[in-house]
């Protein structure tokens, strides 16, 4: 008879605990949906504001004080120039460093320090890279507020990301491949060039594309080195002053008039489409890479 109330209490408590468990589950579910709902609101807000200005003229016109005449031609060319030069500077150095760390580096304290240093560099805020670029490239070397200064700054910014991604890709190459090459008398570099790099290439390419797409959206360091907000001409060479898509967007978004906000949204649509294309290529490469393994 004494057992009855205890099990009764347990049963009552169990019902409560089950209820709590259900509520908890729904809370977790709601939390994961929050991010997705936010993403939806963001896209909806941008497309509903920006679609009205989407036109061929928007792509081919230069920035203007009059919203209906304004376009992003100079910003697009600026972004293309900047990204091209950034790729030229950062890819060989980034891949080179990762090859060195994975294939050639001895295991000692110095290399350990370099590795810690690279992961810390990846955590340095991007404005700080802007200050570095301002002091070294713009002032000290005297490249001025040019595309080259911007590209060099951007290269330093994305180098740690390229190195980390490329090292991951090189790590997945099986050692048997290396031994086979070495056994046939290849030198270390012949082994790397002929076997390791080709089979790590899809992974490396994915990392490079993702870092470049990060650089395309990056604004702060370029503002610090002095990229301009209003550039009504296309850059002719690497020493010209420039603007890029996100800076043009920032410029429009920071004006009070609602018309310019709509232009900013249109600029964002273009930027997002470019990023979407680059990410699709990266996902495609990753998929191909995985299915081949």
């Amino acid at each position, binding site marked *: 008879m004494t057992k009855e109330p205890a099990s009764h209490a347990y049963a009552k408590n169990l019902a409560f605990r089950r209820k709590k468990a259900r509520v908890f*589950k729904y809370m*977790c579910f709601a939390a*994961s949906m929050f991010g997705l709902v936010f993403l939806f609101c963001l896209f909806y807000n941008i497309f509903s504001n920006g679609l009205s200005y989407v036109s061929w003229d928007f792509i081919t016109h230069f920035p203007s004080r009059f919203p209906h005449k304004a376009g992003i031609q100079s910003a697009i060319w600026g972004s293309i120039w900047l990204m091209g030069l950034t790729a030229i500077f950062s890819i060989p150095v980034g891949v080179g*460093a990762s090859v060195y760390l994975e294939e050639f580096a001895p295991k000692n304290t110095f290399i350990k320090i370099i590795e810690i240093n690279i992961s810390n560099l990846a955590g340095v805020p991007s*404005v700080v*890279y802007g200050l*570095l670029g301002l002091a070294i490239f713009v002032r000290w070397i005297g490249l001025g507020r040019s595309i080259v200064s911007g590209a060099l700054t951007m290269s330093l910014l994305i180098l740690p990301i390229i190195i980390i991604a490329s090292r991951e890709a090189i790590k997945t190459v099986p050692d048997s491949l290396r031994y086979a090459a070495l056994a046939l008398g290849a030198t270390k570099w012949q082994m790397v060039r002929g076997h390791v790099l080709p089979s790590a290439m899809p992974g490396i390419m994915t990392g490079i594309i993702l870092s470049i797409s990060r650089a395309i*959206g990056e604004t702060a360091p370029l503002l610090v080195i002095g990229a301009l907000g209003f550039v009504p001409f296309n850059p002719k060479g690497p020493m010209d002053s420039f603007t890029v898509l996100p800076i043009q967007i920032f410029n429009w978004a920071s004006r009070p008039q609602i018309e310019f906000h709509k232009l900013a949204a249109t600029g964002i649509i273009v930027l997002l489409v470019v990023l979407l294309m680059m990410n699709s290529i990266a996902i495609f490469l990753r998929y191909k890479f995985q299915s081949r393994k």
Partner: protein
Amino acid sequence: MRFSRLRELPVHTFLFLSTLLSVMTTVAIVFVLFKESLVFFREVSVFEYIFGTQWTPLFKPQHFGFLPLLSGTLLIALGSAIVSVPLGVLTAIYMSEYASAHIRSWIKPLLEILSGIPTVVYGYFALTFVTPLLKIIFPSTSVFNAASGAIVVGVMTLPMIASLSDDAMRSVPQNLRDAGYALGATKAEVSANIVFPAALSGILASVVLAVSRAIGETMAVTLAAGATPNLTLNPLESVQTMTAYIVQLSLGDTPHGTLEYQTLFVIGVTLFIITLFMNFLSEFVLRKYRQKYD
């Protein structure tokens, strides 16, 4: 054999120099930031900088107290943590404990889109969507306010917490969960009382990283939070973060060598030290409190 080795020397040198560049970058950052800052501190005392409550370098009388910028930065960083930590951790619990592999393979990439969107886009969204929304709820909200900046930065860093915490919780061995179930615990009790504490080191490390990223975040807070160095704890007012100050000064024409120009680097070095400290802290938390189950 020897010939080909000799021929490869330039290649080896290039690879080594590429690696060395990362060290040179760090040295250059430290050198540049400290060099300009030292010139600044010859004019302004460190005491005034750290404890001063007014930041007005751009107009007379100039004051160089960095506390208003610090409070603006902290308001954004802590506010973003209020958004990102509960949502990120609960999302991680959902992904690692509840969601099927199929649902997880949808949610995770979708959330990662959030961290791939350029920050200037978040700034635009804060300005044109979040702030008007806040204004409906709190009519006293100003056009530029810390709250909208904190919310979007919180969402921006949410995927980082969700993803890293998910990894940490998934590496908790299954037999710990099974032991909990064998004792009659519900799934929520297992998740909250067994898996969560067991993965705490990874979760905390991800939180510290997210806060560090929020401190260094620039464009979203510049657009959303404004440019008023304001020693306040009211999130509905306009504030200025350290990063937003750097942008504000860069947009104007500041002659090289002036005290205003050097404030860029002083704020830069402060930012660099704070984020570096946070990154080391995250690493430390991960190492020190990691539980091993091998």
